């Protein structure tokens, strides 16, 4: 699988949020998107998965080209079945148990037989260490547990790529580790991931590529090692220094 996004622009009213973003994700890549708050990271992910309609830009997925501004419903539905999304605030289906949250996309959207879906969902819940809570409703789970179920929900559909939008930002500090270790395990198993994050250790140690966004443009991008060891842009250096200082505290 290869995902290539070119020249994505998006404005909300007069506010230009994305000013021509390019981005490539190859099979097995873990791409971290970094950048200050308000730089357009969430909007970029939402445009790539059509939760937001871009004003312009192209998307190439598995060699197939799509016009982000004019893509039709059928193509959207087809592409979404190959991808998965993990939200900052989990967005588990509130009226469904952990297990039902995972089977829903299999049974309803993919017409998988019930037993097969349950078996698959249980394997996915097991991978994130949530099998023992499969009959709990989201309201009965901690934030970290909900996010792990959300990751299981993403995994169960066998996506070619998973998009993560700040998956640990809504979590209490002591719950962040459990989610990050699940994501690290996925990365080690070769899952292709595009991750918006503020977790510098994750970006430094797990990601293969880093993209730094500011004000709707990509300021710097490259292999993770290069990015952290020898950032080129002054702004990026300042950003990294700032984060380091915060992490030391």
């Amino acid at each position: 699988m290869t995902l290539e996004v070119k020249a994505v622009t998006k404005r909300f009213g007069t506010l230009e949020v994305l000013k021509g973003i390019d981005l490539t994700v190859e099979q097995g890549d873990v791409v971290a998107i970094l950048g200050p708050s308000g730089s357009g990271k969430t909007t970029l992910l939402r445009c790539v998965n059509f939760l937001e309609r871009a004003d312009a830009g192209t998307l190439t997925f598995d060699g197939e080209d799509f016009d982000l501004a004019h893509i039709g419903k059928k193509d959207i539905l087809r592409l979404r079945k190959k991808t998965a999304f993990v939200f900052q605030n989990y967005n588990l289906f509130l009226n469904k148990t952990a297990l039902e949250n995972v089977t829903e996309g299999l049974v309803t959207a993919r017409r998988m037989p019930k037993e097969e879906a349950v078996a698959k969902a249980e394997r996915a819940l097991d991978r994130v260490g949530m099998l023992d809570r499969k009959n709990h409703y989201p309201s009965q789970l901690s934030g970290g547990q909900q996010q792990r179920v959300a990751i299981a929900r993403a995994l169960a559909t066998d996506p070619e790529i998973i998009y993560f939008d700040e998956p640990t930002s809504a979590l209490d500090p002591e719950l962040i580790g459990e989610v990050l270790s699940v994501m690290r395990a996925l990365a080690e198993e070769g899952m292709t991931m595009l991750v918006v994050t503020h977790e510098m250790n994750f970006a430094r140690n797990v990601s293969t590529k880093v993209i730094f966004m500011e004000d709707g443009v990509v300021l710097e991008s490259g292999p993770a090692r290069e990015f952290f060891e020898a950032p080129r842009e002054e702004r990026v250096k300042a950003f990294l220094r700032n984060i380091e200082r915060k992490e030391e505290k």
Partner: protein
Amino acid sequence: MDSRVVTILIESFPKILIPGLVRTIPLTAISFSLAMVIAVAVALIQFAGIRGLRQLCRLYIWVIRGTPLLVQLFVVFFGLPHVGVVIDPFPAAVAVFSVNEGAYAAEIIRAALESVPAGQMEAGYCVGMSYLQIIRRVVLPQAMRTAFPSLANSLIAMVKDTSLASVVTVAEMMMATKQLNALYYEPLALYLETAFIYLMFCTVLTRLQSWGEKKLSAYERKGAV
């Protein structure tokens, strides 16, 4: 209370209760069920923003909520026959009560649909579900849970509103009481007796409401299962 009144009350009890069981309750049950079908449809059309139909739904709600139930009953029962459309009292009452309640319940359900967080819809899209699948399996069930107490409230109100059907000759409890009163002339005792029977019906519904709320709130319960 003298013994004559007591005898009248005892003799009247079944004569009021039976019309309650064979008229008031079926009238309420059928009308409310139809009202729910109308309300869910009208609420969903507005929620989905289907152009044209949406305006039609607003018009329906505007007219029904802006005119008295009693006037609506008179239009259908006395007005329509004047232009050759004659409907029996019971079906006429069912039509009016369901169309009337449908408008109010549609607003309750629409508000409940809108209160479901947008993230629920987006999560559904992201696992590959279609709009209709998400509505049916995620959004509508949550909205109905939210709407349940208000809808139960409307149902209880409707039980009592069906007493208006007596003026269009449906032989329900109120009609029966009026006839008994014409016979015995004990208005205070007889109307209090009828009030008591309405109260019993509504008590049963109140109990059912608490039970239903408990069942439906399974996914809101905190703590271990």
